[in-house]
């Protein structure tokens, strides 16, 4: 046996056995199922019963799949989901429980000793390996021929470059988007908003008159271009719609005009106390509309950045680094709220070039 060979290898074996006698394993006590054939039979039946129950659950699951309609209910629960889930859970659970019961009651549980093998290879093997390695290095001459070595390192290193080139080409860079300008408001510096574009209610797309709003009103709004910016006045679609919506979403609030502290150059950006700000948080870009009418604070649910809409959306709390961009408002000849221009700064989170 290899066990006796390895025991002999242990250097301190003689000393330790002298000082501390090996007490050996305690006496093994048998389980009732080991000594009583009746109990053994019973445990066997228990295990088999669990496996059978698992099979029953599986069959039941298939039956439920066909027998129960999609709209049936058990109490307030959807019946199909619930029965399928319970049957599958039962099928798996009974297999697991059966296996555990089998191991605990019937499989041999006598403790045995298995000696641990030394982790290192034998001294001779190690020497032989090192000698072979050194011979290889010597024969290849990699240490003596720096030209070969360095050109190899260069070639392998260069293999990483194609990955960078291909990853970079996965999508257009912001500069390419702006240069090719495939849709209004392309690039990260601009949005779809432009001079005279109406501010319309989100979802329904209806324009807003200043007289529609009372003090304390909050409107989740979008640029009208989303609803009529496509060819022939069709709604925008696809990428253009998603990009336009992601960058163009705004909140419109009305407060008492004397509560507003206009920022420098923003004196005429509001209409009768109606203000409009980008809805995209300047921290990491969550859409915000948790508005408190009494404090005029707009709260971002993601990281609790709080903006004071009465004071040019100044950051009063949280991790956002700069105020929400404000959309300058005016009223068009039909009496509806429109933008004076695009935002005068990029919306959304800060980025490197922006600083």
């Amino acid at each position, binding site marked *: 046996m290899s066990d006796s060979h390895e025991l002999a290898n242990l250097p301190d074996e003689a000393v330790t056995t002298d000082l501390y006698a090996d007490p050996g394993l305690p006496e093994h*006590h048998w389980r009732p199922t080991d*000594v009583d054939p009746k109990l053994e039979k019973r445990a066997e039946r228990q295990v088999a019963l669990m496996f059978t129950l698992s099979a029953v659950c599986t069959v039941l699951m298939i039956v439920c799949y066909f027998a129960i309609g999609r709209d049936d209910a058990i109490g307030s*629960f959807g019946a199909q989901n619930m029965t399928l889930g319970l049957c599958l859970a039962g099928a798996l659970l009974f297999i697991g429980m059966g296996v555990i019961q089998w191991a605990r*009651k019937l499989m041999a549980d006598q403790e045995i000793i298995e000696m641990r093998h030394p982790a290192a290879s034998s001294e001779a093997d190690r020497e032989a390996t090192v000698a072979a390695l050194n011979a290889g290095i010597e024969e290849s001459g990699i240490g003596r021929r720096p030209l070969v070595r360095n050109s190899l390192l260069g070639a392998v290193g260069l293999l990483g470059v194609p990955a960078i080139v291909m990853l970079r080409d996965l999508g257009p860079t912001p500069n390419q988007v702006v240069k090719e300008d495939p849709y209004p408001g392309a690039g990260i510096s601009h949005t779809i908003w432009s001079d005279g574009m109406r501010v319309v209610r*989100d979802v329904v797309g209806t324009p807003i008159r200043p007289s529609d709003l009372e003090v304390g009103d909050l409107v*989740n709004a979008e640029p009208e271009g989303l609803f009529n910016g496509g060819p022939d006045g069709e709604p925008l679609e696809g990428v253009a719609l998603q990009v336009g919506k992601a960058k163009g979403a705004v909140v419109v609030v009305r407060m008492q005009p004397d509560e507003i502290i206009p920022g420098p150059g923003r004196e005429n950006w509001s209409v009768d106390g109606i203000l409009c700000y980008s809805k995209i948080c300047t921290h990491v870009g969550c859409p915000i*509309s948790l508005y408190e009418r009494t404090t005029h604070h707009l709260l971002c649910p993601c990281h609790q950045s709080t903006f004071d809409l009465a004071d040019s959306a100044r950051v009063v709390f949280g991790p956002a680094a700069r105020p929400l961009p404000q959309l300058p408002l005016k009223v068009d000849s039909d009496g509806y709220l429109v933008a004076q221009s695009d935002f005068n700064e990029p919306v959304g989170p800060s980025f490197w070039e922006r600083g």
Partner: protein
Amino acid sequence: MRLLNRSAGRLSRHRRGPLAGLVVLLLGLLLTGGLYAAFSPAQADQTGSSADQVAQGRRLFLVSCSFCHGQNGEGVRSQDGDHQLGPSLIGVGAAAVDFQVGTGRMPMTQPGAQVPDKPNVFSDQEVAALAAYVATLGPGPAIPTKSDYSLEGMSETQKQDAIARGGQIFLTNCTACHNFEGSGGAMPRGGYAPKIRGVDPKHIYEALLTGPQNMPNFTNGNLTPDEKRDVIAYLGSLNEMKEYGGFGLGGLGPVSEGLAAWLVGIGLCLAFAVWIAAHTTRSTKKKVDA
């Protein structure tokens, strides 16, 4: 013939007893009084802002509301004038009163970050009187009627369309604070957006109209009455929707689901681990063939 007729007339004159006139008079009086008793209270209920009702509302207002809102609903400021203790009620309208008093938020028991809803202490008639009085202080939104927020009279497809549109409006305007299925959520400085599932549709409509506490308004110029009705229909449809994903756990998202996973899920796993590793029963008997 004349003789016959005369005899007939004579006969009837004989039959009428001496008290008949009195009985007829009594019957007439009873009928008039009974009709008056039957119809007059109903009429008094129907006239929404009769002078009596406003007067009763004013009396209730002076007892229950004027301490914070002023004796004429003008509001009360702190002594230094920096703080508004109770807001002015001029122009808040009957809808605001019906919401605040009808949900028990007013009269409030103590100032704080949020006025909680509690059992309403006034009868419906007293709430109506208070609302009628406050409505006389200045023009404001009226109490919506059932036809404002019910889908009755629509075909099934129209109802489904209304619910779908209401869902989109709800997810755009309401979800940020009130949670995606109306379970409510936390707000800054100790406030919270309350749960709006299972709330009387009338109160939801009034809250939209008046913007209670820190909630912004969604007046009729902002969300049209039809859009409000659709939002309420969507909320109602959530109550009928079956829970296909198992227990909803209050619809609070990762908070309650995480709690359940950690306590119940991992607890069960631990129980199984204990079972697997537990010592089995041992026998004192020796194995015969060992």
